[in-house]
């Protein structure tokens, strides 16, 4: 039974077979991706996550965009919009934006680190599987790349009205999006689950 895998989209059973490096196994019936072979998955994800965490701190600590209209200067951080929405009584929107662009991406980065470092060191801390499952469930809700498009649209909207000056945090944010995408692509959850498996 160990070598069997069911397609998560159509439930068809497959024999899992070893893949060549960079290979992808797809369901023969519906075409869903069953698994991929990724080289040095753990090491690559660890490196990218550490880089991502540093960029995340820079993106949140430094000025993001500066808005200049004649003598008035308005400097903002990533979090400024959330605070301003909260002040206007839009706490639901403030909460949604805070969760999807700050809290959940941060938890995903630190959570990945918390799972992968013990795996790398061959520790078996308590409830690590539960922890990894929780971190994985945050994935669809981290929307930093969507936020990036939002910045572009807002910038185009305001560019005729005033000067928009990008800050360090904006550059960090842009790199962070690529790092996060690379990390998601490098992560092989099957390897993590197999290593986490207590029964083996």
């Amino acid at each position, binding site marked *: *039974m160990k070598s*069997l*895998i*069911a397609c*998560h*989209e*159509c*439930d*068809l*059973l497959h024999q899992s077979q070893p893949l060549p490096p960079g290979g992808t196994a797809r369901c023969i*019936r*519906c*075409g*869903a991706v069953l698994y991929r072979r990724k080289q040095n998955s753990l090491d690559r994800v660890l490196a990218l996550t550490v880089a991502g965490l540093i960029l995340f701190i820079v993106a949140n600590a430094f000025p993001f*965009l500066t*808005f200049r*209209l004649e003598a*008035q200067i*308005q400097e*903002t951080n990533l979090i*400024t*919009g*959330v605070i*301003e*929405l909260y002040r*206007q009584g*839009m706490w*639901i*929107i403030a909460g*949604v*934006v805070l969760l*999807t*662009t700050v809290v959940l991406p941060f938890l995903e980065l630190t959570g990945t680190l918390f799972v992968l470092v013990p795996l790398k060191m061959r520790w078996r801390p308590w409830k690590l*599987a*539960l922890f*990894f*499952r929780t971190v*994985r*469930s945050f994935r*669809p809700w981290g*929307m930093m790349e*969507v*936020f990036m*498009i*939002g*910045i*572009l*649209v*807002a910038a*185009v*909207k*305001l560019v005729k*009205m005033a000067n*928009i000056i990008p800050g360090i945090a904006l550059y960090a944010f842009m790199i962070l999006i690529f790092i996060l995408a690379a990390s998601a692509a490098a992560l092989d959850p*099957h390897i993590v*689950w197999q290593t*986490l*498996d*207590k*029964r083996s």
Partner: protein
Amino acid sequence: MKPAPLTAMRASLVSCHSCHLLCKAAPAAQGLSMSCPRCGAQLHSRKPNSIARTWALIIAAFIFYLPANVLPITTVISLGKVQSDTIMSGVIYFVKSGSWPIALVIFVASVFVPLLKLFLLTFLLISVQRKSQWRPKDRTRLYRITEAVGRWSMVDIYVVTILVALVKLGSLATIEAGPGAIFFAGVVIITMFAAMSFDPRLIWDAQEPNDERRKQS
């Protein structure tokens, strides 16, 4: 006719939703909940109450869609003038000012994609309930699109967030978020949950030769 393909369900196996481990389905344990021995997630052969949950969420999203598009999402207060914008009037503004690509991005992300998702999910649900045999592979593909595309609708909410953060120059110019934004965020989040609660394996269950008999037993 080809022999029926062997699914995990027919082999009395359950694939874990979270870590994809194949487990033996406990025969007499209907009603009892099983959990995955590897990751601890609850095991279900199919997502529980998938059709009813997805319907409920879709209907809620359709209801939210209306105020999301009718109510203003931003209010600009500039030198005593107050101007409210809905999602559509924002798109029209960009078209008029010649920013075609931006107008297209907003229109696709905020108007087209949410509606597309709602209609696709409705279509998938009806087809599953009618046990349709029509192009299961393409319907699975449609489901994949619905799942992948949903998050991008959030763009407008982020645009409002950034506008609100940048433009607060007192009486000179201030932008405030409007009630439409709450409903719009509601539509995006509810449709994401709807896509998650739909189980694409139901599309393929209608292909099973003994579908009716198994349901009854």
